[in-house]
């Protein structure tokens, strides 16, 4: 119970932080993948706001701020050291919940042509998938989907926004 309360507090903190700076500088905010469908959150009868172990909320709390995503350089799809740490954290959570499956979304910034970005998003999602698989996550648990430049997380047209949009986001599914 203590542990649950702790993670809850973390999430609240993160949310508050997001809301606070969201008003000032929207380009800086990587929204918590509000475009994506997490599936229906399970309600096991716990109190409001309680995090269900193994849920998407639990995953987000476990991997920490932006721990659900890795970022890429322009036109690149390599998993760098920082990305490896993020994916290792994801893999640890996935090891705890071996029945959970995930979808990895590959995204690009708007400064690419549409079809190429669909291909590049697929590459990025697969790069994340392959690294997770190398950490022992069964590849059959991992699906990929490329959104190309169709679903930017940050809406600005500047380097800061584009850096946030060149990403692969892990989403847990029931």
């Amino acid at each position, binding site marked *: 119970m203590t542990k649950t309360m702790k993670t809850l507090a973390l999430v609240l903190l993160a949310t508050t932080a997001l809301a606070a700076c969201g008003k000032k500088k929207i380009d800086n905010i990587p929204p918590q993948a509000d*475009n994506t469908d997490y599936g229906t959150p399970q309600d096991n009868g716990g109190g409001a706001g309680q995090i269900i172990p193994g849920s998407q909320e639990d995953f987000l709390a476990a991997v920490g701020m932006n721990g659900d995503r890795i970022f890429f350089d322009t036109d690149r799809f390599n998993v760098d050291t920082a990305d490896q740490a993020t994916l290792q954290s994801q893999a640890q959570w996935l090891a705890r919940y071996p029945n959970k499956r995930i979808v990895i979304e590959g995204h690009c910034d708007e400064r690419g*042509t*549409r*079809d*190429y970005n669909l291909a590049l998003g697929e590459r990025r999602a697969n790069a994340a998938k392959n690294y997770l698989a190398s950490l022992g996550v069964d590849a059959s648990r991992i699906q990929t989907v490329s959104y190309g430049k*169709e679903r930017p997380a940050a*809406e600005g047209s500047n380097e800061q926004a584009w850096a946030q949009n060149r990403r692969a986001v892990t989403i847990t599914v029931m």
Partner: protein
Amino acid sequence: MKKYTILSLLLAASGGLASPQFAIAQTTPADDSEPELIEVDVEARVRKVAVPSFVSPTSAETPAGNTNALARQIAEVIASDLRGSGLFEPIGPSGLRAITLGEVTAPEYGYWKGRNADQLIEGFIKAGADGNLTVGCYLYDLGTTQEVTRLGFVVPPKEWRRAAHKCADAIYSKMTGELPFFDSRIAYIAETGPKGKRVKRLAIMDSDGANHRFITNGQATALTPRFSPNYKSILYLSYQDGNPRIYVYDVDSGKQRLITASKNPTFAPRWSPDGQTILYSMAVGGNTDVYKITAAGGGTPVRLTTAPGIDVGGSFSPDGKQVVFESDRGGNQQVYVMSADGGNQKRISFGAGRHATPEWSPRGDLIAFTRIAGDFRVGVMSPDGSGERMLTDSWQDEAPTWAPNGRVIQFFRTEKNSGKTGIWQVDLTGRNERKLPTPVDGSDPAWGPVLP
């Protein structure tokens, strides 16, 4: 290869015809000639053409409205088409006097010269007993005081705009020496909603934006449509099942099917010029290559590229023997050409920046592309990569598609920050650029051939 030219049947001027006679304009494939690089005369003079309202000798009600109203609307569509090409400066029908039926075949040259026009378009519309409309149109040169061409069309009332487009096409062809393109249709993606969550719907319209129709409801993101050469089907990408996959949509039945049973993502669809083959890109394990498959369905996909890197997009040459596509195998996006069986792959783009979204002109003489060098601009080059030049200059112009005559290009333009999009049109001079009217934002235009 679909090339069309209007064959206008010129009627003998002699014979003392009391009223004009008509022949239905026919479209027939032209000879397959060697592709040639056309020199574009950027200094071509804009032609001033007077377009008074057509004559409706007998007022009649039709399902498309009264013939008196249609007579004026036809002149408006012709003037709008010609103006949109950038090569004409139509005068009227607004502000011009009404003409008589007699004038249609015996124009008052002196009067119209006095209106500061170079050419004159006159015509009439009649409702027939069978419910069809007969539309006649005549082009006169006011300098030589000679008839240039005359055409007649019998059309169902709901297709009255097509008669106007055919008339404008004939005049455009006569005056410019280029093939027609107004009587054609466009498939595109209609966009609404905030940048981070755009709603994208498949939509179709006439080349001038009329007869607009949404096809999908926006629940699933739709992208990159292409009309089949016979306009019966549309290839497009949909996230309908959660993944990007290409569907063939049947326009009449409204039904659609996947082009391949593969569970891998498929995108960037194109028809072969004969409509028998579909070119597409497919990612397998993150690696994208170009494939083709029989359009009828049930065939086995043929993989055309195997190089490491992203091979994507592609467009057939008009004779169907070659494919132009893009690849980043050399480090970044560049344009390559290969045989339709995948052989003889070679890079053709060597200009500054990256080159993407190549699209072979239906005339064969040029390849249009998106150049990424800082900003995104639309340009053209010869199929051997020579003669590269830019036609547009904006923050993000992307995805050219050719008019059926290979002399005009549409593309979409994205605004910085807002992400708002619009469909634009430019001719090969790069001078005549304009935005197409669409009910909402638009992207991914795909121009179909001239209608039969």
